[in-house]
């Protein structure tokens, strides 16, 4: 055996040894290199837990590794002012209202609340049907959007979310704000319709102030969010489908100057139940409690 052949054998042997050592050194992070946060085993494990608790996964899961950051938001004071200006230009007069400033013109009254909420009521309610025939969801959505852009002001970044039916048989068209494709669930517009008429539009609009890049972190996986939610809710009395899981921003509403909101996994259970799981901590964000006894 000459020296050249010996070198070749040693090169092969050391390459193999280095692969072996590298595997043992880095294998827990191999998943990260392929950008997959949720493996097939993870999904299977999560499904087992869900099924044991009477929840059933009916939506595909995003398996990629995702990062998130806190988003600083503030009540959309500018938008609120624009709406008021519009009412004033149309000759609105100020009417008495509890905890709000109210402007009335024709059949529309805009109630403006200190926290940034605007409620626009219609008396009599606005006809929202096709010659007495009920409109389909898509038609209602188109009609509402044209009404908002013609009669009110279209909020920036408005994206249609869903339609739901309340216990009192009202239809609610839900919109939220989108920031570079990421939904801000806490910034929303809701239109309440009953029997072919538009009764009320509620706008709780937030302006994104800044993203907080130094605090960008990897978010928990969708499977972790699901198992956390099931752990929080406990077993379901009847089989409940998990219809959707989506990453966005959400927090409870605060009467504050500005605040940071975390990335959340919004999980849809059945047709109308939505829960928000903090995508950093895994905590459920549905009913944040704020201490407020100090002066």
């Amino acid at each position: 055996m000459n020296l050249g052949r010996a070198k070749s054998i040693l090169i092969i042997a050391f390459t193999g040894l280095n692969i072996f050592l590298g595997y043992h050194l880095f294998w827990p992070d191999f998943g990260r290199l392929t950008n997959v946060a949720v493996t097939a085993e993870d999904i299977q494990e999560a499904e087992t837990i869900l099924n044991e608790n009477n929840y059933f996964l009916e939506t595909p899961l995003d398996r990629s590794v995702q990062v998130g950051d806190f988003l600083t938001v503030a009540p959309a004071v500018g938008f609120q002012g624009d709406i008021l200006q519009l009412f004033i230009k149309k000759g609105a007069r100020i009417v008495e209202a509890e905890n709000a400033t109210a402007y009335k013109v024709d059949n529309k009254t805009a109630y403006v609340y200190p926290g940034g909420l605007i409620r626009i009521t219609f008396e009599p309610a606005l006809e929202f049907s096709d010659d007495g025939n009920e409109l389909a969801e898509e038609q209602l959505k188109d009609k509402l959007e044209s009404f908002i852009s013609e009669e009110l002001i279209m909020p920036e970044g408005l994206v249609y979310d869903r339609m739901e039916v309340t216990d009192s048989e009202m239809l609610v068209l839900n919109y939220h704000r989108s920031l570079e494709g990421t939904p801000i669930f806490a910034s929303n517009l809701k239109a309440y319709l009953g029997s072919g008429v538009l009764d009320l539009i509620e706008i709780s609009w937030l302006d994104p102030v800044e993203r907080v890049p130094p605090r960008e972190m990897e978010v928990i996986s969708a499977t972790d969010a699901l198992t956390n939610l099931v752990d929080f809710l406990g077993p379901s009395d009847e089989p409940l489908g998990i219809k959707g899981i989506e990453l966005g921003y959400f927090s409870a509403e605060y009467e504050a100057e500005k605040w940071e909101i975390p990335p959340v996994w919004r999980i849809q259970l059945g047709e109308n139940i939505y829960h928000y799981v903090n995508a950093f901590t895994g905590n459920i964000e549905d009913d944040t409690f704020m201490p407020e006894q100090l002066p």
Partner: protein
Amino acid sequence: MIETIKSILLLILVGLSLLLTYQLWYGQVPAQVLEQDIYERIVVEQPRELERVVEPKKIALHNEEELYVYKKSTPDFGEMWGLLSIALQQISLDALIDEDDLPLDSRHLLSYYMQPKLPVGEDQPWLNEVLYSEIEKVDLYTVNDSFRLVLSGSNNKFSLLLPPRKAEQFATLLDNIQADKKLASAFLTEELLADHGFSQLSIVEPLYVPVETVFMSEYNIRPETLDQDLILKTFFVDYSMARVIEEKEGGLIYTDGERGLRLTDTGLEYSSPRLEEGQATSAYSEALVTSSSLISYHGGWPDSLRLKSLELSGWGDTTHYSAEWQAYLDGYPILISQSIRALFNDNGLIHYARSFFEVENPIIPENGLTSAASWNEALEKALSKYQEGFPDRASSIILKDIYLGYAITTSQSGYTGKPVWVITINNEQFILSAFELEPLREEDLL
């Protein structure tokens, strides 16, 4: 040429294998060490030991015909309590005496009103050879030449004979009490009330009122300065997960979705409501120690603060301990709507509020200190206010509390500690300025 490349490649591979082997052997940090690195170490105040957690609400000194009352932060209060506390820690079972009744020639020297109750007995620092009980009052008597302690709980009472050395220490202490700092008081009885024209009032708890003229002054005070960064770290293990809400009034709220911490100019408030669903199974004395840990950890336990109460309460299947602290200035309690308070159970800290003020300097008028109105003038004013407010409740009027204190008021120039009379009739509290006896406006009170 190929041989040279092979040699270089082989050298690189050998070097890499050595590096990887080294990394694999020495370079990996165990998971638990990593975890410690993530959670930052913080330095906080050392919690008080149980011996220093409980202090009496007041101590009454009986001297011949006169009576003097001592409260936290008055001279000699610490020495009086310290001597009794050490005596109870050192006395053995031999000191127990069977005689329940005191001889007629016994003389009452001191009364210690224990609030919160003093745990004595097995595993406690005090009287660890007797059966466990919780003591509400300790009285010191002199009988002939000996000193006798009578300890009373809600269901039990027992006497101890002080060893001669301890008796001597008490005698020395009583001789050395600073005469000029003493303020003569009276034990309020229904007879004394009737003598002053308050025959419609009854009393359910031991109350003392000053019978000498009391000179007091207003104080400039300011909220304590807390290290907000440290406070944040004590409530959120990984505070990078906490987000900030800026209130319109200037307060800051930190929350991670499960717990919230609110910081304002005058204090802080923390809530973790999901922990409410739990039980408080720890014993009373363990809860006393926990309360000490909580206040020390979350801002510290200033010297002028006394643990006022520790109670077990709850609703439904849930129970929790509620601890409350009281601040004192010159022996007078400082009134504040949000005192320092902690609610906790086996799950942890449910709620914590802290608002503590530091004294800057007294505001002494040019013509010197002002005298406070007498107790009977204050009571007359409070009673008339009560009768104005509740004309239909003329019968069964109970005087529940009467004392001088300081109320914290706010004005444009800052915070002031104002001398006040605090009088509780039935469940109505009246706060009157100690000098003019004018009711303090609620909006001025903090």
